[in-house]
């Protein structure tokens, strides 16, 4: 049996909120003390203890948590109160994790991004269009491990594309 140098799994359902600052509020600063995982700068992602924060556009973040939408909503309400505008988008995406030495070459058939370690490292995040699918992704670690999200209505096509390029 040929040993594959990459593995792929479907991510479990996560709670997810889109967060933006109310006029003039410095949310990133607040998040440093108020959230277990602070809000990162644009193009980056941070993760601790089941809570991930992602930024791919200025002044907007996605916060993802391994838990219910109620729990995450309450956590964020407590952290930001009136300083933030928040929208619950839990369930809007399906996700996949691809990891291993072969993942760069495999994802090179899908993503139009430079995945070379000189260009992209652990903690980098991006939104892009890959094989006509809108994709949100980040590099989680140096293995490398990548996590990719695609909007739910495209789930079947996303899966099919991953099969066609040999990731699944």
């Amino acid at each position, binding site marked *: 049996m040929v040993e594959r140098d990459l593995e792929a799994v479907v991510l479990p359902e996560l709670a997810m909120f889109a967060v933006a600052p109310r006029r003039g509020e410095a949310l990133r600063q607040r998040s440093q003390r108020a959230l277990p995982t602070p809000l990162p700068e644009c*193009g980056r992602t941070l993760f601790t203890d089941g809570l991930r924060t992602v930024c791919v556009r200025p002044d907007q973040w996605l916060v993802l948590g391994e838990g219910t939408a109620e729990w995450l909503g309450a956590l964020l309400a407590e952290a930001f109160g009136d300083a933030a505008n928040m929208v619950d988008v839990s369930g809007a995406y399906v996700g996949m994790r691809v990891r291993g030495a072969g993942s760069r070459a495999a994802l090179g058939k899908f993503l139009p991004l430079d995945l070379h370690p000189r260009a992209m490292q652990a903690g980098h995040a991006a939104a*892009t269009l890959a094989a006509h699918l809108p994709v949100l992704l980040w590099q989680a670690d140096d293995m490398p491990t990548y996590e990719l999200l695609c909007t739910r209505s495209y789930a079947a096509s996303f899966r099919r594309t991953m099969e066609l390029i040999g990731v699944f």
Partner: protein
Amino acid sequence: MRIPCPHCGERGNDEFLYRGAAGLPRPPADATEAQWHDYVYLRDNPYGSHRELWQHVHGCRRWLVVTRDTRTHVIAAVTDVSMALS
């Protein structure tokens, strides 16, 4: 074509939506119909440098002002619309 988005880095043009000329001041509510007509319909068509609006729809979704040469596609500058003056 590749467009260097100030937030996302250089990306292929298939990630962007093109709108047209940038920097045209929107007429005030009490402007005449003729002024609105000019704002909506009249455009210059320069053979050379052109300031134009693109939205990075498959990236950061920000509207950007791109200065592009219509002859050579050389892109001289890209700024987020929040930083660009009319």
